């Protein structure tokens, strides 16, 4: 049992992985973006995928979320081989991705964004209408669970802070039954406070039994919430470490491919 910290409470259930990706390769023409990456995610676990720019993180999560088809390798979903034809397929299976643009519309209210494309309905035939009452209630309640008190369900998303928007996107994915939640650099553009809000949200979601794939290049953010850490470099996995087994320095070194950063660090006198 690892000790509880601010953003990490309790150990994940050790179960069958929800998604298991084996030796995934992805080539774009003559460019090898992924050269054999293996990765898995279990329920209630936060698995961090770390890597510097160009390491293949984006390609990898796009493969996982159904945007790209792998050139080689296999994807197992709940133990069965699976091939997603589109992001929609992956979404329906329970793999939700929160991309950096968040798929939110600033001019629309939080509720309307929350249910965009999946509106609750009441009435039949010609009189089928959006159940705004229920939608508003669910939205306020879900946001409250995530620790955000909305001014009102009709508050425009544009008036929320970056961290709050991130949380709306996460809450939305979880509410619509995500088993695996892929977060693409959710903290990269946020301030300190907002980052801690998002990290707390990740911890909350994880405890509900959702598998969280947390993509980041910030070691400290990853160590705060992660259970396992996989480092990607030049399209390959450099290894996976478990919580408590690795120091921030070691992770940082792995990410940068070891040596170069050690030299760089020397010249910067340990500031990174």
């Amino acid at each position, binding site marked *: 049992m690892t000790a509880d910290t601010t953003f990490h409470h309790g150990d994940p259930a050790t179960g069958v992985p929800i998604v298991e990706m084996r030796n995934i390769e992805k080539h774009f023409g003559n460019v090898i973006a992924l050269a054999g990456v293996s990765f898995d995610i279990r329920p209630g676990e936060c698995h961090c995928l770390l890597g510097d720019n160009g390491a293949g993180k984006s390609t990898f999560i796009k493969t996982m979320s159904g945007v790209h088809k792998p050139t080689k390798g296999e994807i197992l979903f709940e133990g069965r081989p699976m091939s997603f034809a589109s992001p929609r397929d992956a979404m329906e299976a329970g793999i939700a991705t929160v991309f950096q643009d968040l*798929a939110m519309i600033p*001019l629309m209210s939080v509720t309307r964004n929350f249910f965009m*494309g*999946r509106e609750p309905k009441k009435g039949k035939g010609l009189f089928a209408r959006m159940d705004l009452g229920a939608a508003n209630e669910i939205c306020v309640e879900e946001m409250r669970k995530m620790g955000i008190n909305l001014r*009102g369900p009709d508050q*425009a998303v544009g008036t929320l802070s970056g961290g709050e928007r991130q949380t709306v996107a996460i809450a939305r994915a979880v509410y619509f039954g995500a088993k695996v939640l892929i977060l693409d650099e959710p903290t990269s553009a946020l301030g300190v406070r907002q980052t801690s809000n998002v990290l707390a949200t990740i911890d909350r979601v994880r405890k509900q039994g959702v598998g969280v794939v947390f993509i980041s290049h910030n070691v400290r953010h990853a160590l705060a919430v992660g259970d396992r850490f996989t480092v990607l470099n030049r399209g390959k996995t450099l290894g996976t470490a478990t919580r408590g087994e690795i120091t921030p320095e070691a992770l940082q070194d792995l990410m940068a491919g070891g040596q170069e950063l050690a030299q760089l660090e020397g010249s910067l006198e340990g500031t990174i």
Partner: protein
Amino acid sequence: MPADAAMAMDERVKTEPFLARLMKRPELGAIGGVILVTIFFLATADSSMFTLSGIMNFLTPAAQLGILGIAAAMLMIGGEFDLSIGSMVAFAGMIFGVLTVNLGLPLILSIPATFVFAALVGAVNGLIVIRSGLPSFIVTLAGLFILRGASLVGLKLFTGGSTQLRGVREAVEGDMLTPLFSGDAFGFFFTWLADIGLIEKFRSGTPKVPGIPVEILWFVLVALVATYVLLRTARGNWIFAAGGDRNAASNSGVPVDKVKIALFMATACAAALVAIITVIDSGSTDARRGFMKEFEAIITAVIGGCLLTGGYGSAIGAFFGAIIFGMVTIGLTYTSFDQDWFQVFLGGMLLIAVLFNNAIRKRVTGER
């Protein structure tokens, strides 16, 4: 609800005054505009403007424009423009005239056929915009000329050289559907009101205002349906989403292309409705029908609070925008001003509306 209590605790949020909440509604500007214009004409116009017959007088053109304006507003909220609606009125009028006069079809066939034709043209417009990814502005500008030209050529072809097709009134006389599209409604009620002396009547005893012109009822109906669809249905949510950010919308599973094509079809059908009403009313159709209406419809929508960039606006706003339009057009004849001030007035309104909408948008999105 516990959420209410929690909300009340957030110390950073000031309670919003009623006025500030009102400020966030897109139609506020249009309603304010109606009030201002009313005050202006109350002060300057002959008092007969605001009698029952005066009001019907300015509501009738407002209604015809408003039906187009509301459709244009929905399309604009969905993120697209249609500059071909004015020409579409002429084109649909021609189709309708040919079907009723040349082919002698009863209204129960010719009206649906006209709508189907219009919807097809709308769908073509939409498909070109979606498939090519070009701005709808330029695609429908082509439509503006093509449809206007086609109406001219077509009318000459069907009438043997004239750009006007007459004889619609004779053709539709006695048709059971005619009262739905022309004349006045609730005549019995107005007769009764006149009998008990509540409204003015002629010496013969018939009321001066024989009823509500049906286009006003259509106008109200269109406004109500559009508002309901926009604010209370899932489709409405899709329209806002498609106009707000098409990528975000389609990533969330909104069928953006279908929504936009349906909006183009609805806009063309609104033009067809106006065509049918005005053609039956005047008994003839000509190629100049609906001239410049595309710009007036867009102005109506913008005065009604629609953002040119899409994703924001209201049908009720366009409803009031059209009423402002009608009041200004007709109202100036009741005053001692030169009527040609009309366009200056209109341009001014448009400019104020755009500035106002821009400020509102910043408020809503919290842009600083």
